């Protein structure tokens, strides 16, 4: 999907629907399940510039009412302290939905109500979806939802979203509230005396002196944000913003002096609370909000004894070191084998189908339509080899991987793995959650880089993606096995993996120290194991695959056309020629290898195929099938090593560009080229001492 700006997408959504709702909730409470139940496949994904967290939007129809749904990222709160929270808050403040549906986990009401209270404070009409009531009952919790509704002053609808229970009722409650058929009661959210006093003082000042508040917030809501010293709102008052925004804000917030006054007043009030209670006011407010949520939770739930669930015991075994680590190794090997074999088999299958049914026919068709031999060949590079390259990576590896990843994610096991791996990954400036994408890289780099979305900061994603690119994917494994293991010996094939592992370790260690910013620690909820919903997994997989397709398809096709044109017209040798000092001088490879390396950008396994093909053309005859006829063992080794490290394939570059920006993609490309030449050059000079004949 082309990156859509949230601003525009929200506007469009509001324009074509009668009613918009925002779907909010903590992570892993079944919010995406509710979203999936409500919407079909026509989901639009949009993001804010510079933010990796996305907003999904969809439309549903209920008794003739067209309802637009903004699916906010799952967060624990609505402050400006992390990207996901900031995006969730902006989505809801800019989107101005008519109703906010907060999906809460009935088995952990206190923490979940925290965000409900925040939405009520911001002045939004709220409908609470009390999800996972079945699980709550299993662990011995019964929630009186009518009483909860009374205390919050909002409709509360119990649901079991995985099975679709209560979803209709939920939407019904939303529509009723929006059309005024039911009313919200003014919720009584009051803080302790000191905090409340400060909120009122500041709120009154805002009411008196501001004509218009940012996002039309109620005075009380704005007062709380300023007291909490919220970065976004404070910056707004300081006028630290983009020019366009500033102009808009100046109209609203009055002159600079006035704004300074507000900040001074709020800082003074904050300091008073801070001194009296000995903690920052933001923390104080959070504490009191938790207290409030706890009181409400206690009032509406009854506990009764239930035996410990099997899933709870299992959870323990997955994180306890003696059982968890062997289990994790087994699961990792399982994933690797799955991606490798199932993906590999599917890839070969797609390849065979394409070659036997489409390639030949298309060849004839193109040659029939285009009389110019060279032009026809170039077109075939694009539409035949290009599309095949895209298909044989996309369908088998990415689809299968995403099914596995979604299952791990939604079941909760991913978090257990992340917990166990945190220590190792921490040394590379990452935390435990990055193990999955790096592991996946061994299947295919493309989904692995998309998988870095589980990481929360851009810095971590750049770090992890760079490491992923260095993990030999299945195509590179094919070259290593096909060239080195077959002609040089399997120990040398293994050596390439060892070198790769060392490079990954060193690059991670080095980048961690070079990249600005520091690695923040792991803070991750260990939610209970759940059996994921098949429809959610399939839909998730499909949306992710669609994202990949939008990026990779055009890039691979155009890339293939361009390289094909160079190849067919003979310009490729002209480009490869100036490279020969590097190819021959530094790496000690035959000049023909340079052409292979350039074409290998398309698909790494092409390098080996081309090496053989070009060698045959180059006069070695059919004897060139045996690489040893024209390359020494050292040359084969170096060739495979360089192929493994240098520029990731074009599909990977495309996804890097989409996920991290083209500048970063370009930097990673340059980095890998330099690294490949350096490592290859060193190996060329060192390997002979290992007893390999030159």
């Amino acid at each position, binding site marked *: 999907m082309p990156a859509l700006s949230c601003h525009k997408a929200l506007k469009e959504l509001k324009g074509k629907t009668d009613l918009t709702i925002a779907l909010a909730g903590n992570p892993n409470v079944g919010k995406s399940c509710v979203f999936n139940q409500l919407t079909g496949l026509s989901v639009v994904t949009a993001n804010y510039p510079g933010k990796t967290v996305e907003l999904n939007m969809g439309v549903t129809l209920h008794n003739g009412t067209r309802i637009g749904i903004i699916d906010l990222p799952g967060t*624990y*709160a609505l*402050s400006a*302290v*992390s990207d996901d929270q900031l995006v969730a808050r902006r989505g809801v403040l800019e989107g101005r939905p008519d109703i906010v549906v907060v999906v809460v986990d009935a*088995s*952990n*009401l*206190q*923490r979940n109500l*925290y965000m409900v209270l925040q939405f009520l404070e911001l002045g939004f009409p709220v409908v609470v979806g009390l999800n996972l009531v079945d699980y709550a009952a299993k662990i011995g919790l019964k929630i009186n939802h009518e009483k909860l509704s009374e205390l919050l002053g909002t409709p509360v609808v119990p649901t079991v979203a995985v099975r679709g229970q209560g979803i209709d009722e939920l939407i019904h409650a939303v529509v009723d509230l929006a059309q005024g058929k039911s009313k919200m009661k003014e919720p009584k959210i009051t803080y302790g005396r000191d905090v409340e006093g400060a909120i009122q003082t500041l709120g009154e000042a805002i009411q008196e002196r501001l004509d218009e508040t940012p996002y039309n917030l109620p005075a009380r809501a704005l007062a709380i944000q300023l007291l*909490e*010293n919220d970065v976004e709102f404070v910056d707004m008052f300081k006028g630290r913003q983009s020019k366009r925004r500033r102009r808009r804000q100046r109209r609203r917030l009055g002159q600079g002096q006035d704004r300074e006054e507000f900040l001074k007043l709020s800082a003074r009030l904050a*300091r*008073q609370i801070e*001194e*009296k209670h*000995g*903690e*920052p006011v*933001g*923390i104080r407010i*959070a*504490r009191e909000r*938790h207290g409030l949520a*706890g009181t409400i939770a206690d009032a509406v739930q009854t506990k009764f004894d239930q035996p410990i669930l099997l899933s709870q015991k299992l959870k*323990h075994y997955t*994180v*306890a*070191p003696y059982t968890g680590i062997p289990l994790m190794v087994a699961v990792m090997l399982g994933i690797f084998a799955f991606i490798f074999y199932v993906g590999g088999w599917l890839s070969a299958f797609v390849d065979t189908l394409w070659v036997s049914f489409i390639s030949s026919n298309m060849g004839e068709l193109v040659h029939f339509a285009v009389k110019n031999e060279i032009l026809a060949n170039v077109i075939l590079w694009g539409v035949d080899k290009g599309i095949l390259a895209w298909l044989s990576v996309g369908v088998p590896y990415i689809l299968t991987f995403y099914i596995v990843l979604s299952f791990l994610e939604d079941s909760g096991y991913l*978090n257990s793995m*992340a*917990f*166990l791996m*945190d*220590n190792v990954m*921490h040394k590379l400036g990452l*935390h*435990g959650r990055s193990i999955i994408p790096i592991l996946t890289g061994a299947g295919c780099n493309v989904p692995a880089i998309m998988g870095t979305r589980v990481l929360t900061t851009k810095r971590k994603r750049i770090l992890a993606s760079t490491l992923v690119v260095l993990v030999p994917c299945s195509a590179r494994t094919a070259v290593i096995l096909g060239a080195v293991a077959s002609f040089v010996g399997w120990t040398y094939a293994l050596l390439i993996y060892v070198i790769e592992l060392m490079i990954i370790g060193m690059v991670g260690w080095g980048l961690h120290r070079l990249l600005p910013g520091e690695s*923040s*620690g*792991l*803070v*991750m*909820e*260990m*939610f209970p194991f759940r059996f994921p919903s098949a429809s959610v997994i399939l839909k998730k997989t499909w949306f992710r695959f669609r994202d990949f397709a939008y990026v990779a398809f055009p890039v691979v096709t155009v890339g293939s056309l361009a390289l094909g044109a160079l190849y067919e017209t003979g310009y490729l040798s002209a480009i490869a020629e100036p490279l020969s000092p590097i190819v021959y001088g530094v790496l000690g490879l035959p000049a023909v290898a340079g052409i292979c390396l350039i074409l290998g950008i398309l698909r790494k396994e092409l390098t080996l195929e081309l090496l053989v093909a070009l060698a045959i053309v180059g006069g070695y005859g059919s004897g060139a099938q045996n690489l040893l006829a024209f390359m020494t063992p050292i040359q084969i080794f170096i060739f495979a090593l360089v192929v493994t490290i240098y520029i990731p394939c074009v599909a990977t570059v495309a996804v890097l560009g989409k996920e991290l920006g083209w500048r970063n993609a370009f930097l990673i490309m340059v980095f890998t080229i330099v690294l490949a030449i350096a490592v290859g050059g060193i190996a060329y000079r060192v390997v002979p001492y290992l007893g390999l004949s030159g």
Partner: protein
Amino acid sequence: MKSEELSISKESEEYLEAIYRLEEKSGSARTMELARQLKVTPGSVTNTIESLEKRGLVIHEPYKGVKLTKNGRKLALNVLRRHRLAERLLTDVLHLDWSQAHDAACELEHAIAKEVDEPLEKALGHPKTCPHGNPIPSESGKLVEEKAELLTKLAPGEDGTIAKITEEKRDMLQYLATLGLVPGAFVKMEEKAPFNGPIIVKVMGASYALGRNVASIIWVRKS
């Protein structure tokens, strides 16, 4: 010793006090943070720290920050004692608002001579804490500190209440607070990964994995 105490300038006293507070909060005082707190330039912080180091009151470890020596700590506690007594005087006797007491006490503390602080303490009725609830160090420089240990010291299955969270980055504090990790909250250690790996704690009905660097800013009182 006495002559040295007398030769301590008002400025040095301010520095020692600030270093003490920062050390309390996060283990050591970074020079940037000191400059911010004392509202001076980083350059002048470096100069003063150097002279304090020469007199054996502080140790400056590059990249780690400044720590008080035994002597420095004694002097700092003495300043703190006078500061907190001054605050008591201002609020209890002169009925100043407690929010104004801090700034005024910052000035007053340096004027309280050695001979005055004990009679002052007596006149105030031997208060244990300042108006903000922080303990007043005794004359000999002892501070009745709350006993707390690092969260990571708890064994799986043990529990306690959070005593303090020593972190300077507001975002992290606020993030932890939204999860319910605030002083006073009840936590239970569920799992500990070996080799200084992360831990899993239960707080407010939910379990969270915390990396060691996050866990080691949280102090608890074992129950």
